[in-house]
């Protein structure tokens, strides 16, 4: 589904965030991406979402080389990718309903469809009761869950999540992971960047580990993850 070939990302300013990264996420696979703070996890996800372009190397989604996708095509490509952001990135002046409905409105769904799908997505994250609230009346964890609802509302074949459980309590984290597993079971590929080792340890999924921009753990089960991976290197 996602394939990185010798991908290097150097930010303007010289910071090398990714260094010759290779990996392959199988179609319909669910995997974790982990690593210390500043290891390059968000950068890797941003390359997939075409929010950044690689300095060298190639990224493929479903066999399409992302370097070949023009700026005009990017919006259409992004509609196939559900993204959950490290900070929720909701619009503070629109209600929860309107925030979650955004991807559907953009694709031109009928209002009846939109209502049905938004309600279903909010139900999945346990926030149906707050459908008409404004975001600034929600708690941190609730905002994060609204962000998750927005990412899954149009049933994208690929889901990227950056620290989706950072503001959630352990119980809720498991609930959200179950939502991801449900989606995965109907064929959605899921990639989750997280620091939450407890979470990773409990789930037996493929885990990719970054360290200072290099992929040091690829394809191993999470069982042999050691905390030493998180030794800071800066």
């Amino acid at each position: 589904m996602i394939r990185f070939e010798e991908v290097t990302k150097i930010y303007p300013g010289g910071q090398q965030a990714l260094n010759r990264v290779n990996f392959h996420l199988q179609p319909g696979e669910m995997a974790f991406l982990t690593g210390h703070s500043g290891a390059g996890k968000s950068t890797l996800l941003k390359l997939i979402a075409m929010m950044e372009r690689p300095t060298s190397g190639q990224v493929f989604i479903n066999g399409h080389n992302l370097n070949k996708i023009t700026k005009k095509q990017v919006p259409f490509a992004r509609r196939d990718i559900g993204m959950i952001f490290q900070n929720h990135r909701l619009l503070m002046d629109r209600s929860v309903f309107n925030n979650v409905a955004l991807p559907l409105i953009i694709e031109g769904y009928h209002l009846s469809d939109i209502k049905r799908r938004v309600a279903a997505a909010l139900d999945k994250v346990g926030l149906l009761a707050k459908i008409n609230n404004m975001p600034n009346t929600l708690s941190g964890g609730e905002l994060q869950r609204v962000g998750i609802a927005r990412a899954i509302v149009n049933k994208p074949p690929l889901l990227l999540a950056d620290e989706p459980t950072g503001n959630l309590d352990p119980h809720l984290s498991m609930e959200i992971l179950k939502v991801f597993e449900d989606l995965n079971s109907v064929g959605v590929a899921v990639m989750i960047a997280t620091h939450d080792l407890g979470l990773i340890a409990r789930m037996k999924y493929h885990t990719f580990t970054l360290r200072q921009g290099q992929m040091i753990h690829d394809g191993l089960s999470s069982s042999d993850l050691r905390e030493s991976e998180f030794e800071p290197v800066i």
Partner: protein
Amino acid sequence: MSLLFNQRKSPGANSANPGHRLVMYFIRHLQQALASIGELWRMPISSLLTMAVLGVSLALPTTLHLLMKNGQQLRSGWDSAAEITLFMEEGVSDSQTQKVLRRIGLYEQVNKVTYVGADDALEEFKSLSGFGDALSYLDKNPLPSVILVIPTTQYSSPEGARELLEKLQQQPEIAFGKLDVTWLEKLSAIVNLLDDAALALGILLLLAVALVIANTIRLSILNRREEIEVLKLVGATNDFIRRPFLYTGIWYGLIGGLIAWVCVSLILWWVEGTLLDLASQLGSELTLSGLSFSEFLILIALSSGLGWLGAYGSVMRHVYEIEPENQL
């Protein structure tokens, strides 16, 4: 529409009928136009302030236009200043005079011909000049009969009037003609000055309107930077993001135009007193004219157009520039 996953169905594919699609396209545009009104409505003070700025800015060129328009009417009165006085040869008979009058009246450059007999002339001269008592000493009317000729507007300019005078003087019954060229030239210089100033002012004013609209839309785009970034993140095209701003620009222009119209009406009402006073003193049948309905429509169309144009300029540049950065 799905780019990366060919097997995925997009919602638009549901309606295979192209006619239905076109209808949907317009429905969606209408939705966005209405939504952008709602947007304005949510920040009424802020929106009103912006529209007031536009309204006042638009009121200025409109006022100027009315000023020029009403001034035109005044000037048409002044055109009679380009009056040619023709002195008849002595001993021209009445029938000959009638013939000359008819002949001159047929000239295409001539607007109006009036005959003033020697006696009438003396009477008029007495009352006009204030020499009334002094002239009663005269034992003989020293004045000849004259024909007063008012040229058409085209021939009211100093050159045109002079040209016409040359022609008229060649009539055998006419001793000589006279034209107050200095006064005409003064008038023409004043009118030129006013025209120049109005043009300069008008250009400045339209520049101001364009700048205000572009600046307002630019600031409102920058204000909604976060929103634009989020929309881009969830897959909105640039066109989709731009549309509400363009509609907002149009609404701003439209309502600004209406405010301008109200302003102008108020100004008109205010100046009316003085203007009518002036008209009655000039003795002329000057009626003060406001904006006609078609001019009103032009104002609204122009302001909406300017709103759209300003929005378009800002939006094209800034929406493209804003890219969701970092913070994934």
